[in-house]
C-alpha cells in the first residue's frame, strides 16, 4: 500500500507532499516519542507515529528511511519542520485520531496485505 492509499483510507492529511507519497510502500507501523529509541527500532517502510513536531523528527525519519511520519491528535506542526521535511524528502501526515487508534487502524490495513 502506498502512502497516498493509506491516507485516503484513514483520512490522513498530507502535510508535506513529496514524490514519495505515490511510490513509497507502507509495510509497518511504529510508535515512540523517544528519538534515540525510535531511531534504534524503526524499520524501513514503517509509519512512525510521534507527538514531536520539532526538526529532529525529520532527521530521525530520514536516517531510518521510515515510510512517513504521522502526527496524531491534530497536534500543530512547526512551520520550520514542514519546510525541512520537504527539503529532505520526508513525508509528514497528520490526523485527529490518537496514536493508539492510528496504530490499530494501520495495523488492520496492512496485515491483510
Amino acid at each position, binding site marked *: 500500500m502506498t502512502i497516498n492509499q493509506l491516507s485516503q483510507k484513514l483520512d490522513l492529511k498530507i502535510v508535506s507532499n513529496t514524490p514519495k507519497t505515490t511510490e513509497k510502500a507502507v509495510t509497518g507501523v511504529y510508535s515512540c516519542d*523517544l528519538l*534515540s*529509541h525510535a531511531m*534504534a527500532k524503526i524499520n524501513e517502510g514503517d509509519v512512525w507515529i510521534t507527538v514531536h513536531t520539532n526538526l*529532529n523528527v525529520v532527521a530521525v525519519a530520514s*536516517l531510518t528511511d521510515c515510510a512517513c511520519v504521522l502526527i496524531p491528535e491534530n497536534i500543530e506542526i512547526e512551520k520550520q519542520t514542514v519546510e525541512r521535511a520537504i527539503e529532505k524528502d520526508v513525508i509528514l501526515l497528520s490526523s485527529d485520531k490518537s496514536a493508539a487508534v492510528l496504530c490499530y487502524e494501520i495495523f488492520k490495513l496492512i496485515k491483510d496485505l
Partner: protein
Amino acid sequence: MNNVVVRDYIIPANDFTIAGEASSNVRKILSQIGVAPDIVKRTSIAMYEAEINAMIHGKGGQAHVEIDENKIVIRISDQGPGIEDLDLAMQEGYSTAPDSIREMGFGAGMGLSNIKKHSDILEINTAVNEGTTVLITVFFKQE
C-alpha cells in the same frame, strides 16, 4: 585507488536548526559513492547520535570524517564537561539530559548504545572538564 574523501564539520552548541546536518551530509556522500544502503544507514545513525551528544552534552564540537574504499572513520570531539563514568553512560536508559532537551524527545539514554550497535569499532576517550572524543569506524564490506 587511494582515493580518500575528507570532510570537517563544526557542531555548534544547542543549535537544533542544524543538528544532524553533518551526519546527513555524510549519508549523502556514502550513498553517492555507492556504499550499500544498510551500511549507509548504520553509519549515519551512529554519527547522528554522536553529533547530537556533542551538541547537547558537549557544548558543541567538531566532526572529522575520512572515507576510503574500505571504511569510514568518524571522529567527533568536543571540549565539554566529559563523562565521569563511561560504563554507566554506556548503559541503556542512563541519561543526564535536562528537561528542556527531553521535551524535544532526547534523553532515552540510548544514544551511546546505538553508536556501539551500529559501529564496527568504537573508541571513546573522555576526561572530566576536558572533553570527549568518539571515534567510530564502519567497514563497507561485512564478513
